């Protein structure tokens, strides 16, 4: 707890000897008090801007989607037709794409991210090398997603296509691989999303692993655990709250991610269960259609945006709850 205004009692206590000893003021001058209060109110106003923004965003999105909510109701979530000419809208394709792309990306990124975090926190390599790897991971986080999208279009997707084609030829009987890869599609989008999530998961996991108290490491090694027994059985479980929170934050980020996905997913509003065919996500649909949309389509897009917001909010709250719930209370 921070002490609150102890100075007021100091200043207000009238002491006769104050003047005698050279202190002439008993109260602070009004200018001083005005400045003090004024500054406090300034920060309050600035702080409230955040809350106002959140409420305004929610209101704007909700108000915009209201006509579509009235018109399509909850059917919107399960219908997969998106037909502006007939003013018939269902967002299932985009919702499915959002969930599938982000969950699959997470599936790839979590083991890689947590593995790298362990690799750069535990003393497997000399400190200098681990530091360089750490800096590189931070750098990866700084690359804008539009540039990852550009790389995905010009380098990754062409390089990936023969691989995906052979996957289709061998495993085409599985619905997930049932279509011929034609370029942009769900699979490359998943990979580029995983690349974007890696630095988030790695750096949050690294931070929590770093915070595991040295006493616990001593305890683990002290009973004769090898390095990896300690890591797997003691250190990672002790850091699990932070790691799980980081994974959920990354999931929230993945669902809202727009640019790289839009550029490589193909933006097809036709539903297909195959990962090799073009797909869609809510955010890529927004990026593609919002500029030219009018009338009911705007409202339908806002409805989709509202769903996206609810999804990301839920995931973010879940992240905060998990971190608090699983937190290791050690000393």
């Amino acid at each position, binding site marked *: 707890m*921070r002490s609150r*205004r*102890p*100075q007021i009692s100091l200043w207000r206590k009238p002491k006769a000897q104050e003047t005698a000893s050279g202190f002439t003021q008993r109260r602070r001058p009004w200018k001083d*008090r005005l*400045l003090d209060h004024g500054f406090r109110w*300034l*920060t*309050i*106003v*600035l*702080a*409230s*801007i*955040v*809350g106002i*923004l959140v409420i*305004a965003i929610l209101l*704007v*999105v909700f108000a915009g989607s209201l006509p579509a909510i009235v018109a399509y109701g909850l059917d919107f979530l399960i219908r997969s037709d998106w037909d502006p000419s007939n003013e018939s809208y269902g967002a299932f394709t985009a919702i499915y794409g959002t969930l599938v792309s982000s969950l699959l990306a997470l599936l790839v990124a979590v083991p890689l991210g947590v*593995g*790298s975090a362990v*690799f750069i926190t535990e003393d*497997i390599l000399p400190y200098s090398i681990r530091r360089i790897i750490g800096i*590189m*991971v931070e*750098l*990866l986080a*700084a*690359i*804008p997603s*539009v*540039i990852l*999208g*550009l*790389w995905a*279009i*010009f*380098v990754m997707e062409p390089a990936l296509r023969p691989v995906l084609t052979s996957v289709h030829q061998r495993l085409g009987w599985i619905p997930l691989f049932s279509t011929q890869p034609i370029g942009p599609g769900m699979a490359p989008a998943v990979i580029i999303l995983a*690349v974007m999530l*890696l630095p988030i998961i790695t750096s949050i996991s690294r931070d929590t692993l770093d915070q595991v108290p040295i006493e616990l490491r001593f305890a683990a090694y002290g009973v004769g655990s*090898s390095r*990896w*027994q300690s890591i*797997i059985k003691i250190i990672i479980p002790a850091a699990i709250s932070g790691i799980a929170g980081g994974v959920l934050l990354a999931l929230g980020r993945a*669902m*809202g991610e*727009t640019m790289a996905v839009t550029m490589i997913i193909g933006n097809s509003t036709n539903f297909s269960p195959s990962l090799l065919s073009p797909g869609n996500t809510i*955010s890529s649909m*927004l*990026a593609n259609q*919002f*500029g030219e949309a009018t009338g009911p389509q705007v409202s339908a897009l*806002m409805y989709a*945006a509202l769903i*996206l*917001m609810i999804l990301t909010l839920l*995931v*973010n709250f879940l992240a*905060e709850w998990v971190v608090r719930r699983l937190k290791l209370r050690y000393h």
Partner: protein
Amino acid sequence: MDIKANCHLPHALANDDHRKEFDSCPLEYNPLLKHNREGIFYTVLAGLFATLAILPLLLVLGYVMFRGGALMSVELFTQLPSPPGLSGGGIANAILGTFIVTGIASLIAIPVGIGGGIYIAEYSRVDLFSVFVHYGTNVLAGVPSIICGIFIYLLVVTTRLLFGESFSAVAGGLALAVIMIPTVIKTTDEALKLLEDDLRWAAMAVGASKFVTITRVTLPAAFTPIATGSMLGIARAAGETAPLIFTAMFSFYWPEGLFKPIATLSVLVFNYSIMPYEAQNQLALAASFVIVMLILCINLLVHRLGFYLRG
């Protein structure tokens, strides 16, 4: 608790029988032991994961640096982009536009963010308003950037709020600011909370008001992390694209004013990389190079800044 009695218990734990219940345990390193075999396996696995995690970075950076760097020319920095289908041209207006839009965003987000951060770290207590601000910050940080763009689009662009103009540099700056604010707030809050409370008490004990304590003692003490965090926020904003598509939009011409549509590097990369024309794709690649250099420079500057200020 009878400890004396324990002393007379048959000492099952201390005798050789107990030790025999464990594997014998020579001190020499034995690579065939289970934990050592597992250790090698996991170490190799983690190394592989770390390599896979860095590989895309190296590939992306290498591609942008070498292929994009090779495209650098004087025209690029002096000329306007060529319309789709035509070759040549530059990205000069987009470079200028990125500076303008990011500048507007910083001018809004940094004061608001630092003020909000000061409130949370120094003034907030356990009341409804503080909870509102705290959750507001977290929620805003989690709002997808495309939705921030749509929000400003509906609020400012379609309503023609700014002097009757629709798409504009200011609208783009506002959208970027919405994204930057929670970052700056968190940075400020964390930097101030890292300071020892002793510092505040020391200032107050000599009779400094809260205002003086904050502006003369705590803020200067937390300057480095706040500056570092804000700079990184700016770097991140400079590469943001989604909030700008519907706000700043794009322009083939030099910036015509703060209330007119404006080109930015990131939107240029987006628009030109999905075009089926080789010349435009090249411009997108060149613009990517400029963005990456810009971000790398800011990051480097930040590390330098932190280094010098810490002494």
